[in-house]
């Protein structure tokens, strides 16, 4: 076979995906001037995205520290894409924050460095072939987001960051205990030392691991990483962290970080499923997922802060995705993957819109935002489209994935499907109720023009709409392949 043209690239794409954000973080920490650093931030995330895309064509050999397979490539590309568009949104968002004095130039330098550090940590967690390394990366991602959430240093921001930090650390600590238990379970079968923590080695010998230890390990890992996914009843940090941090951080939290934690859960689920003597991981995931979905659906009704409301909507959707992965099987897994992709795109688009709304109105209170479609037509209709999409109405992408999840559940356990549909309808009602208040009626508050780029918002919405109408064949084939891999 003729060597591909990309083999002559001067770098390994997997290394570039990690190195670019790491170097950018160091660089942005020292460079002054917000225009330059915001620009460089966008450039670095774009470069990371391009490097991630080359992974499709040029897949590196699996090492003992890093590996690339059909599953994590989806997460990496989705993550770097949302990271890129969010950095573009962030560039227009923070200029305004600087003007009104909520952020100082020193804060901004720190913010950009942390943004890149977060991108690095997430890619490291996704590409790690070692369960210990993955744990370290997720801890790093948590620390960077804690610092970004607390960046306004107001009363509320500090409370949110503190709460996130404490709950996140406890979750992470439980996950580490689970990781140690997995090593203990693997040691007799694989032998002491490095190999017993390497994914590929663990998966190859999954049937020989000690099932008793593996069971307990999964409970700890599910609770630990589940805290980071935002599953009820461990979700308490999530609404605060979304509401009080800068809006680009909310978009990154919902669009990326929750997925990364979910990826960790999925990996361990695969390990459990490959061991016939261990408990089935599916029911535990499905239960927690369904609980989160229904709980968040009801919680949506009493929200008075617009960002908190969409944070609860994230809990709802992460619950739905976890439920679908817990149900398992090719169809449910396919639907869950699709739903995860659509949710990341839609929810970050909604946060882009909400960010602009909050800036122009000077408030996040739902009661003080009225008649958006009249006062700011483009922004208002953008938000309406996003909310319609997230509520799961046709013809947008989320409708299709929700439909697939519901119909596959009906086929297998109708009782669960009834609860599922109830939860979805409750959430739909809440979102529509709030949306009609926000978008229509007599405009209130400031009517100032929005000086922001709509490109990130509408490009996400276009993708979601496009996916709802037509899914490209290669994408479907890829997702089906991954769904089979997940079992």
């Amino acid at each position, binding site marked *: 076979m003729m060597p591909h043209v990309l083999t002559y690239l001067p770098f390994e794409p997997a290394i570039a995906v990690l190195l670019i954000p790491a170097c950018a973080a160091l660089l942005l920490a020292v460079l002054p001037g917000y225009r330059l650093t915001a620009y460089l931030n966008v450039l670095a995330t774009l470069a990371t995205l391009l490097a991630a895309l080359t992974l499709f064509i040029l897949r590196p050999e699996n090492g003992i520290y890093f590996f690339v397979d059909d599953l994590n490539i989806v997460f990496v590309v989705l993550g770097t894409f949302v990271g890129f568009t969010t950095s573009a949104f962030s560039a227009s968002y923070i200029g305004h924050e600087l003007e009104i004095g909520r952020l100082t130039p020193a804060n901004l330098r720190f913010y950009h460095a942390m943004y890149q550090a977060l991108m690095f940590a997430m890619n490291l967690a996704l590409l790690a072939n*070692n369960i*210990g*390394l993955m*744990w*370290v990366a997720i*801890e790093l991602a948590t*620390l960077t987001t*804690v*610092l970004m959430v*607390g960046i306004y*240093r107001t*009363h*509320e921001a*500090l*409370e949110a*960051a*503190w709460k996130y*930090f*404490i709950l996140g*650390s*406890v979750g992470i*600590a*439980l996950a*580490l*205990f689970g*990781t*140690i*238990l997995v*090593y*203990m379970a693997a*040691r*007799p079968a694989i032998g*002491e*030392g*490095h190999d*017993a*923590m390497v994914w590929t080695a663990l998966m190859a010998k999954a049937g020989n691991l*000690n099932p*008793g*230890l593996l*069971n*307990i390990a999964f409970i700890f890992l599910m609770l630990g990483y589940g805290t980071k996914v935002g599953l009820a009843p461990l979700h308490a940090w999530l*609404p*605060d962290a979304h*509401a009080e941090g800068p809006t680009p951080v909310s978009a990154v939290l919902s669009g990326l970080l929750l997925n990364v934690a979910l990826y960790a859960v999925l990996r361990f689920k695969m390990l459990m499923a490959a061991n016939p003597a261990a408990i089935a991981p599916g029911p535990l995931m499905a239960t927690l997922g369904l609980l989160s979905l229904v709980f968040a659906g009801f919680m949506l009704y*009493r*929200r*008075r*802060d617009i960002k*908190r409301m969409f944070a609860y909507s994230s809990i709802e959707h992460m619950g739905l995705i976890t439920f679908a992965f817990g149900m398992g099987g090719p169809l449910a897994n396919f639907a869950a993957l699709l739903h995860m992709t659509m949710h990341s795109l839609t929810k970050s688009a909604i946060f882009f819109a909400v960010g602009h709304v909050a800036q122009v109105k000077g408030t996040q209170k739902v009661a003080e935002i009225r008649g958006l479609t009249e006062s700011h037509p483009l922004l208002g209709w953008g938000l309406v489209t996003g909310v319609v999409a997230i509520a799961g109405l046709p013809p947008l992408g989320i409708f299709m994935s929700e439909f697939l999840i519901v119909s596959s559940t009906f086929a297998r356990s109708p009782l669960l499907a009834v609860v599922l549909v109830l939860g979805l309808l409750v959430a739909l009602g809440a979102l529509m109720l709030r949306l009609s208040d926000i978008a229509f009626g007599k405009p209130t508050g400031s009517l100032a023009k929005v000086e922001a780029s709509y490109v990130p918002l509408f490009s996400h919405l276009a993708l979601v709409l496009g996916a709802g109408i037509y899914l490209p064949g290669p994408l479907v084939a890829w997702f089906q392949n991954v769904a089979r891999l997940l079992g």
Partner: protein
Amino acid sequence: MERFVLDVAHLLAGGLVLVSFMLLYQDRMFALLNVFALHAVVLSLSVAWQAYIQKAPHLYITAGIAMALKAVIIPVALHRVVVALGIHRSIETVGGIGPTMLAGIGLVALSMVVMLRAAAAADPLAREDLAFALSVVLLGLLMMVTRRNAVSQIVGFMSLENGLILAAAGAKGMPLVVEISVAFSVLVAFIVIGVFLFRIRERFDSVDVQALDDFRGERR
């Protein structure tokens, strides 16, 4: 000889559980920090003993880090924070000492039942070490739940991490990467918390987490 080796390992790990109980009922800030230092010393001895019996010299580094960082540097630093903030009076606990101790006993019993049964196939050293480690982790969690004061929550969190290090040290042949990263992350975590504490002080004149709870976004 074999018997003696096991006995000492169990003595030290059991000692760590005991000190965790001592942490639960401390009602003065300085006493709490002193007991935490003791916790770290016992952990360090336990890890060093594991290093000796497993003939794993890298574990001595973990023991050294625990001794230097958690038995000396962090307690001294927290001591200063407490003095600077003027919060060295008694600590408010949620729910009183008696019920907390009972809950702690229940948690230790739970972890013994769960771990000894699940790890029945593993070698006795690792099995009982894991059971003790889980007890320390759960007691650390309990402490975080029952304290309102930010500094004592930090101490609870660090005692939880000590339990994790005990588990990692007991897992024979576990790669060094993880242990160092654990120690390192504790340091990072401490810095983060320290920064937060000072900001909290700056803004609210209190490190009582209850005072932070007023705001919810919905309760207005």
